[in-house]
């Protein structure tokens, strides 16, 4: 008798599901964010350093190719990317269903999304400061370490924040391959079964998560920004 069930009863009844979904979401986020931070950290820096006027401009060919690849991958609607790379997913994760499998396309999308974000954030570092380091005899690696990562750090923290919020939302699509997660719960119960109360609970949960990420990100960015 669903019409007499209160929101509280639904919550109670679905609590194990909600906890499981939250765990799955956090797992997928942890994997795709770590992959993005490590791999796009390097990729974004390289794309920036090989752009015109920067210290590795002589490898501009890399810049052109990497830019092209980033744009192509970012052109894919996520659900199509998910399906298109499923053979690759099976090789990496051993299966093409479940949260671990969903983490593979999520990571790939996150890597290219974040590489672009990093490259754009680094462009805000004034050219003059980079030039001052070059005049001191800094190598490209020293410029990264002593100048770019220092001067862009609050922007980079905000970039991670944007990445986390975006991929919390992307992870809902992972339900298509049985990835689970909070978004999937919302789709399965709230959307397909017209259980508005479940929809409401998951939405509230997502709003709380997004607010927390955003709050934390902005606090951290302010904390490291001495400009």
């Amino acid at each position, binding site marked *: 008798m669903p019409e007499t069930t209160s929101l509280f009863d639904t919550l109670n009844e679905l609590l194990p599901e909600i906890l499981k979904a939250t765990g799955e979401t956090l797992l997928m986020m942890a994997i795709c964010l770590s992959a993005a931070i490590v791999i796009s950290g390097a990729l974004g820096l390289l794309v920036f350093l090989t752009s015109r006027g920067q210290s590795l401009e002589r490898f501009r060919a890399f810049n052109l190719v990497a830019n092209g690849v980033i744009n192509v991958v970012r052109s894919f609607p996520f659900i199509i990317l998910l399906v298109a790379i499923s053979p690759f997913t099976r090789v990496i994760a051993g299966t093409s269903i479940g949260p671990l499998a969903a983490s593979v396309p999520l990571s790939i999308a996150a890597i290219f999304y974040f590489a672009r974000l990093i490259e754009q954030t680094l462009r805000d570092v004034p050219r003059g400061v980079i030039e001052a380091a*070059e*005049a*001191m*005899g800094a190598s490209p690696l020293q410029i990264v370490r002593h100048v770019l990562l220092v001067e862009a750090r609050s922007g980079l923290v905000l970039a991670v924040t944007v990445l986390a919020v975006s991929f919390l939302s992307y992870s809902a699509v992972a339900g298509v391959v049985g990835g689970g997660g909070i978004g999937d719960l919302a789709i399965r119960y709230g959307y397909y079964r017209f259980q508005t109360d479940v929809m409401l609970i998951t939405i509230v949960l997502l709003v709380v998560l997004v607010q927390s990420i955003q709050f934390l990100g902005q606090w951290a960015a302010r904390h490291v920004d001495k400009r």
Partner: protein
Amino acid sequence: MSQTASLPPSPAPAIELRGVSRRFADPGGRLVGVLPTSLRIATGEIHGIIGFSGAGKSTLLRIVNLLERPDAGEVIVHGQDLTRLSAAGLRQARHRIGMIFQHFNLLHNQTVADNVALPMRIAGENPARIRERVKACLDFVGLAEKADTYPGRLSGGQKQRVAIARALAPEPHVLLADEPTSALDPRTTLDLLGVLADANRKFGVSILLVSHEMEVIRRLCHRVSVMEGGRIVEQLDIADGRIPEGSRLASWLSDFGAGPAASPSPAGRPDADTRHHFALEAAHA
């Protein structure tokens, strides 16, 4: 600062540019830069380069540490031809070439002390030596008490002092100054010129300075090169702040209504002659 060598009476120039040129198209498609130019700056000399914007003076300055690589010519700093060095060799040579900029170019997310330490960290100096030099250089520019402050909390003049301390920390042979006072008011400008003159006297560092402000050149420099259209058109000694009469520079100044160009600059009277200050700039605008 104790180890810093005093001015050696060596005849070897601190900087020698031999036939350097660098041409590129400006945003309007006009060819600008430096036509084949030679310049010698003696050890311990403060040399000014003056000219209108677009005359090539900043390009010429940036050729000295190869921030601009010349299309042709030799760039000899402290006896070493920089154009022949490998990338690593050039980085090594740059450790001993200080540079300051119009907009200071400090790291805003690092404290004053960390900013001053940066060139020495880049050069791989040991931490004890870095601490000692940072303290000595901040003392020298009079900002010892600001060591733990972030540059965002400093005035423009203080920021440029930090930049000077940063440039002097690795005990450079030469100091390149690209319009170092152009973002500062006249009084702060005079203070800073005092700091630069002190650095030259105390540490024997040779200074090559680019400015469009006649007053800066007159007060600080031993010699001046006048640039126009990518070449040096005149070189003058400036003794006691006097611009020799009959020189091109003197006639420029009188053309632009800046009064008698050869008037002496009275030392110790900071506000005197500020009417000359922006003479060239105003004439150009």
